[in-house]
């Protein structure tokens, strides 16, 4: 269970040209709930605030305002306890190249307080599902990006997290592997976990997401099933929602 209410996050960045500080309001008052056994899809153009939102849920960043509860735990007050219920994956996160997948998974099992033998068994099972079993004892230095991503996925799910946060899990994966990951997410849903994913792949959203939130400039537009979203905007694909949002904005500015 994930409950976010009215979170804000802004960054101070330097504008090199005007030499002034700029305030980027990445997230402006987002609220959403992901129930157990539900897959929530976060959509939005580049820089909309998806990753920032997911990082805050994962306890890697603190919101400026608002509260986040993961499995009933306030992630700002008890970040470690909250994180122990979360499996987090993102594209800007990598694996320890010097290890083999088996070594990495055993180690992260220990980090998460999972018994080494249990962690190894569960890790190998996950690798098997991701068609990586034959690489379990190969040093990851020579792995391709997709292979590393798959090991990362196994790492994120190793401790049997109640909440799964995947930031663009299929980026860089071929269609077959992407399908495997989607199937895995389906299993997570069936096992009653709360899953939240961000993506740019619209068909994926339509195929697996129970609810969709479209983030545009830090605010959430539509927080409903894919079907309802399409009906509300009177469009045929989710892509068209994007175009409309941009068009609306330009009209608003003009």
């Amino acid at each position, binding site marked *: 269970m994930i409950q976010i209410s009215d979170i804000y996050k802004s960054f101070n960045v330097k504008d090199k040209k005007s030499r002034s500080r700029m305030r980027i309001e990445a997230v402006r008052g987002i609220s959403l709930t992901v129930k157990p056994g539900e897959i929530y899809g976060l959509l939005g153009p580049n820089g909309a605030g998806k990753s920032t939102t997911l*990082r805050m849920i994962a306890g*890697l960043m603190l919101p400026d305002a608002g509260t986040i509860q993961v499995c009933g735990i306030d992630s700002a007050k008890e*970040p470690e306890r909250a994180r122990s219920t979360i499996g987090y994956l993102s594209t800007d996160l990598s694996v320890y190249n010097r290890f083999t997948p088996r070594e990495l998974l055993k*180690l992260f099992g220990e*980090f*998460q307080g999972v018994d080494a033998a249990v962690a190894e068994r569960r890790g190998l099972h996950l690798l098997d599902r991701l068609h990586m079993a034959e690489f379990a004892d190969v040093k990851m230095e020579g792995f391709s990006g997709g292979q590393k991503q798959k090991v990362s996925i196994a790492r*994120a799910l190793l401790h049997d997290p109640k909440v799964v946060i995947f930031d663009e899990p299929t980026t860089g994966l071929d269609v077959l592997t992407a399908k495997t990951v989607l199937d895995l997410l389906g299993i997570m849903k069936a096992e009653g976990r709360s899953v939240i994913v961000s993506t740019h792949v619209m068909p994926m959203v339509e195929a697996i997401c129970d609810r969709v939130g479209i983030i545009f400039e830090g605010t959430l537009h539509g927080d409903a099933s894919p079907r309802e979203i399409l009906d509300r905007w009177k469009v045929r694909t989710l892509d068209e929602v994007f175009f409309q949002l941009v068009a609306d904005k330009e009209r608003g500015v003009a």
Partner: protein
Amino acid sequence: MRGALLIVKKEFMELSKDRKTMFFTFVMPLVLFPLLFGMIGKLGKNDKAERTGRPSRVCVVDDSGALAGVLTGNPKEFQVVERPSGDLKQAIRDQKLEMSLEIEPQAADKQRRQETWSVKAVYDRSDESSALALDRLRKAVASRDKVVVQERLKAMGASTQLAVPTRIEPDDAGGTSRALGKALGSFLPYMVMMMMFAGAMQHGIYATAGEKERGTLLSLLSTSIPRSQIIIGKLLYVFSIGIIVAMINLLSMAFAVTRLVGSEAAAAGQGAQAMPGLGALASPGTLGLTFILMIPLGLFFANFIILAGIQAKNTVEAGTAIMPGMVVVIFLGVFSMAPGIEKMAFLPYVPVVNVSLAIRKLFSQQANYWEYTVALLMTIGLACLMTWLSTRMLRRESAIFKV
């Protein structure tokens, strides 16, 4: 603490996977010092052995024959050679011979009349073999003179001891161990500081800014290990590496030095007791107190490295931030080696310097326990302060996510 220990385990596991780094960190110093010292020793020994093992070549003009017995009766030290043709001084400078002696013609008569006669010795002070020849001459003449004087005293019916009215018996209160301890004490803290810092530096950068660069830090932060434990774990790792590297280097150096000095003493026929081993140089108490002091100092260095590494965006930035620290350490080390600084009153209160000062005093057996305690507590305090700062730094989002 469990989380911190897990991080230490992870760091050592990562290190163990890198054979080359392991080799250069732990094996290289073991081989380096014996090799280096052995080479220096061999060169020095060969040169010295060649000089002292050879008689000095001397040409003599001695018509009266007053000095004849002294030179020919001592074939191990003197070899009488023909006077070279051409410029005599140039011949000595060219090392064709070591010394030329010219005894005044009336020497034998003068001696009979109990007058002083002189020998003119031409030598080259800048050349060690030539200087040795003069030394040998002085000693040989002195012992000959003693015999002459004693014979004359005897003939006069006086005590032969008149020849030596006073005899000085020197007794070194410091003993060999203290002289060596002092030399070592001013050198050792510097070496230890250098090695602890330099040895830990790269590993510290790899474990902090390197993890950011490789994108692995985020995976650590997403686990349920608290951030303070992650920092403490990395700190312990960098600290252990520093201590281990310093230890290996010290041991290797001690081994090389004792072998070098030992073999030299044996060559000089002094036997093993002439060169006390490192254990005898410093009592176990001294070594223990030094080690205790090295712990907070190592922690302080580890903290500095971690702090610089964790605030940096990448390894290059971390390296450039740590470099000035290295320069300061070198400077402080050289500074604390300088003679006479133990008399500066404020130094015991300057962090890091006071550590090397305390070690130096321990080794020269002048330990001041108040200063020792100040250095110890100050360094511990500083180390704690920096650990706290590093933990705060890792909580800052700008330190984790690139801006």
